[in-house]
C-alpha cells in the first residue's frame, strides 16, 4: 500500500489528430496500477515539459504519428533537463521508422513502440526503466 505509485504523463505532441493509440496505452497503464495524467491532443514540447514538472511524473509517454519525432523528442528532453528533471524518462509510440529507433534510444528514450506492440511489453519496460528509482 505504501509502495510508491508510478506517475506517467501521456501526451500527444504535434499536429495529427489521432489519439486512439495514446488512449489505449493510457488505459493499459491504468490497468497496470499506474496513475496516468492524460493531456490530450496537440501539445507543444513546452506544454509537455510544464505538465511533467507540475505533475512530478516519473516518465513521459509520447504518441507521434506525424513523423516529427526527431524534432520533438530532443526538444522535450532539452526542456526537461532545463527544468531539472533529467531523471524523467521518455517512451514513444506511433509511426517511428526502424532506423530512427536506435538514435532515439541513444538520446535516452527507454522504449519505441510501433503499431501492434503488446501493452504488457510497454508496462514491463516502463517498470524496468524505473526500477532503481521506484
Amino acid at each position: 500500500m505504501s509502495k510508491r505509485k508510478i506517475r506517467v504523463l501521456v501526451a500527444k505532441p504535434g499536429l495529427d489528430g489521432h489519439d486512439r493509440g495514446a488512449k489505449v496505452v493510457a488505459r493499459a497503464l491504468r490497468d497496470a496500477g499506474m496513475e496516468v495524467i492524460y493531456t490530450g491532443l496537440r501539445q507543444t514540447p513546452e506544454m509537455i515539459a510544464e505538465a511533467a514538472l507540475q505533475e512530478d511524473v516519473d516518465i513521459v509517454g509520447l504518441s507521434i504519428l506525424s513523423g516529427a519525432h526527431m524534432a520533438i523528442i530532443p526538444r522535450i528532453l532539452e526542456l526537461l533537463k532545463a527544468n531539472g528533471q533529467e531523471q524523467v524518462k521518455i517512451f514513444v509510440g506511433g509511426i517511428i521508422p526502424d532506423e530512427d529507433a536506435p538514435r532515439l534510444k541513444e538520446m535516452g528514450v527507454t522504449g519505441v513502440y510501433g503499431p501492434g506492440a503488446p501493452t504488457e511489453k510497454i508496462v514491463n519496460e516502463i517498470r524496468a526503466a524505473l526500477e532503481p528509482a521506484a
Partner: protein
Amino acid sequence: MELARLLTQVENNTPEGRLSLDELFPHTGKAHLIGVTGAPGTGKSSLVNQIALQYRRPSAASPKRVAIVAVDPTSPFTGGAVLGDRVRMRDLAGDPGVFIRSMASRGSLGGLAQTTAAMVQVLDAAGFEVILIETVGAGQTEVDIARLAHTTLVVESPGLGDEIQAIKAGILEIADILVVNKADLPGVENTERALKGMLGLAHPVEKVFSHHGEAMFLPGSEPVNPSMWVPPILRTIATDGTGVEELMAAIEMHAQHLHQSGDWGRRERTRLEVELEALLTETLVAQFRTGILEARYDEVVDRLVKRTLSPWEAVKELLKREV
C-alpha cells in the same frame, strides 16, 4: 521545481512530507479555497479553466496566482487511474502564475483524496492566493469538499434529473453557488426551475458543517436573517466563457460575506477539526495494526466469515487482547 516534488512527498505521506507540512503550516491560511463539484460531465474542468483565466486576466487590477488541484477516481480493482482534467485546461499552459496538479482519489470515497487537504496546505504556503479544488465527478454524497473549501460551487447541467433529485439531501445542500453549466442546451429552464424550487422549499438556515456530517445551527438563526447567504443560481457556458464574469462576482461576494459574517473563521475551525480527527483515526488504527499479528487478525476474519463472531464481537476480541 521543489514544489512539485514536495507535493509528491505529501501525497505519498512520507516522513519528509510530514516534516515539511509541520514547517509550512504556520504560513497557511491565506488562500481563498474554492471547491468545484458536480456530476461527471457537467463541465467542472472547463469551468475551472475559465475561472482561472479570469483570475489571470491581464486587465485585472492584480492578477492572482492560482493553483488547481484536480482529483479523479482511482480504480478500485487495479489501483491505477487516468487523470484527464488537464485536457480541459490547456488555455492555462505557459502561464507561470498557474500551477495545476492532478491527483488520484486513491480509494477515498468523499470526492477528494485523503491527502488533498495537505496538498492544498502546501500550495497555500507557497503563496497561491486562489486554490481551485476540483472533486471527482460526484454523485449525491461526495460532500467532503464543503468541509475543505471556503466557497463551494456545485455544477449542474441540463437533463440530469428532476425536482425530486433537487430536494434530496446531499450535494446540492453544500452549494454556496449553484452553477447551471451548458446553458446553451435545451432544458436549461427546467434545471434552473428545479434548483430554484429546491432553494425556495428550504427555509434557509445558517449553518456550518460539523465533522459528524450534521450541520450545526447557530443560535438565534431561526428567523430568516437578511444578511444570510442564499446560494445564487447562475448560468454559464464554460466552453466559450459566457456567464463566467457573473460567476466571478458571485465568488467575490461570497468571500466578502464569509468575512463579514464571521463564517470564514468558523469554517476554518471546522476544517482543521475535521482534519485533526481524520489524522487521529488514521494514526490510531495504524498504531493498533502494527501491534497485532497478521495471523491473529486473519483468524478473527475467518471466524467472521464462519459467522461464529459478529463484527462488534470481533472488534472487542481484538481490542481486549492487544491493547
